[in-house]
């Protein structure tokens, strides 16, 4: 599927650190849309082995801020014809997405999000309990009696896709256009001269380049140390798990902020489940029994009949969190060093639009208009983007 390159070249026009979905998408659009093909993508592990392969594959655009809604909506639009672009089945499946409200305060937030969404042409609506019951007949509307469902934010375009295939599709598309993907190649240093990038040291030798794009999720702080940049990014593990395969019974995607659950059923019949962030900083991906116990008990509040269903696998990824739950993207104070980070628990759905906007930013040297709310310097100017109400269930 990919060309193997025996050695690195002495130099490239652009070096991308991280062969996950975001890095490979940027490489793909650099080659396809901007004609920049002398590009190396460096990956210390294997393609799509980080958070691209660890998320719960939910795609949606029902965010809270205008910046977020416009950005994620463009991503949902790009997702639609991606499989045709790649000639690869992404198992993109539009399911509808319910964010359940168990309190009056949550219902108010749902109405707020619905209005912001509608204003930008995104299909979202606040719905009542009867609508939820019709859409999810199997759900216990009282949630065990202690968290009755009052309504929901319903987002019809909500979808899931096969995450590995996204990385493979972008990777193969970039590879065929001349981009070199080097796996098992770790970046050990970034060389600067007079405040600008001149090259990258790797475990397989030195590469000269004037442009570096960093797309490494939970490893971002370590790369930023190499160029002496400081950000608010903090890393907590985010865990997820899947059940054994069962007959199809759950069509939509269900999220409950109060119960800290999100769940969907894959084409194979497995239930893919996630919850909130682990409670403290950690740079390791060993999952915990606490997580399975907590998540399983909340799943049973909603779906008591699952009590005999077994959990097949659990895992963790390293989430690069920001204080406003919005990413940090684009130019940085170091000339030639571009950042696509702060993707915490919400990065998979943004893969296409991140590739599009970051390739534009790298090719032109100017931030793409869609990422102007996500700039590196917004914290120094106290201009946060405030996506916290919609970015994850972990709060």
């Amino acid at each position, binding site marked *: 599927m990919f060309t193997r390159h025996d050695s690195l070249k002495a130099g490239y026009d652009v070096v991308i650190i991280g062969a996950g979905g975001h890095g490979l998408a940027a490489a793909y659009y650099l080659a396809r849309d901007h004609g920049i093909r002398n590009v190396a993508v460096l990956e210390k592990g294997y393609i799509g082995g980080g958070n691209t392969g660890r998320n719960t594959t939910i795609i949606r655009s029902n965010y809270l801020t205008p910046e977020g809604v416009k950005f994620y909506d463009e991503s949902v639009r790009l997702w639609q014809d991606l499989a045709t672009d790649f000639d690869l089945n992404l198992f993109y499946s539009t399911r509808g997405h319910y964010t359940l409200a168990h309190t009056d305060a949550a219902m108010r937030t749902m109405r707020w999000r619905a209005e912001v969404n509608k204003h930008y042409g995104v299909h979202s609506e606040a719905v009542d309990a009867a609508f939820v019951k019709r859409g999810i007949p199997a759900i216990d509307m009282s949630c065990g009696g202690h968290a009755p469902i009052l309504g929901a934010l319903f987002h019809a375009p909500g979808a899931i896709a096969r995450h590995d295939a996204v990385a493979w599709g972008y990777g193969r598309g970039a590879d065929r256009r001349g981009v070199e993907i080097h796996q098992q190649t770790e970046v050990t240093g970034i060389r600067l001269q007079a405040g600008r990038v001149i090259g990258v040291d790797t475990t397989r030798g030195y590469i000269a380049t004037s442009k570096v794009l960093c797309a490494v999720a939970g490893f971002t*702080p*370590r790369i930023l140390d190499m160029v002496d940049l400081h950000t608010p990014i903090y*890393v907590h593990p985010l865990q997820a798990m899947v059940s054994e395969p069962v007959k199809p019974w759950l069509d939509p995607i269900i999220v409950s902020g109060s119960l800290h659950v999100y769940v969907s059923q894959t084409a194979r019949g497995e239930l893919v489940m996630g919850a909130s962030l682990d409670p403290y*900083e950690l*740079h*390791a991906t060993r999952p915990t029994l606490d997580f399975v116990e907590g998540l399983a008990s909340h799943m049973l509040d909603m779906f008591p009949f699952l009590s005999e269903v077994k959990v097949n696998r659990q895992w963790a990824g390293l989430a690069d969190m920001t204080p406003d739950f919005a990413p940090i993207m684009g130019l940085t104070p170091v000339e030639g060093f571009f950042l696509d980070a702060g993707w915490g628990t919400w990065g998979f759905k943004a893969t296409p639009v991140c590739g599009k906007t970051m390739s534009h930013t790298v090719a032109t040297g100017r931030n793409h208009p869609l990422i102007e709310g996500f700039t590196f310097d917004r*914290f*120094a100017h106290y201009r946060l983007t405030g996506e916290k109400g919609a970015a994850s269930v972990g709060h």
Partner: protein
Amino acid sequence: MKVLVCPLNGARPVSEFAYGGEVRPMPDPDTCSDVEWSNYVFNRSGSPGAKYEWWCHIASGFWFVALRDTARDEVLATYPAEAVRRGLPGAA
């Protein structure tokens, strides 16, 4: 880390504790610049390593400091909160 040694209560399961973030010196808000203040408010040392952190034993409401390796999730030492005023070993 499944067990944390609280300086007051001894070894307790980690689920009894709340994490309070890294111990960081606060610049004087009356004299520091806007950039220094935003750096203090927002920026964090995100890379893994041995860090002094605030932890609280929830049941007893007791705050203390743990020196923890955030790469391996191993607590190297714990100190009562007064240690911050006296100066933690090796801390800036």
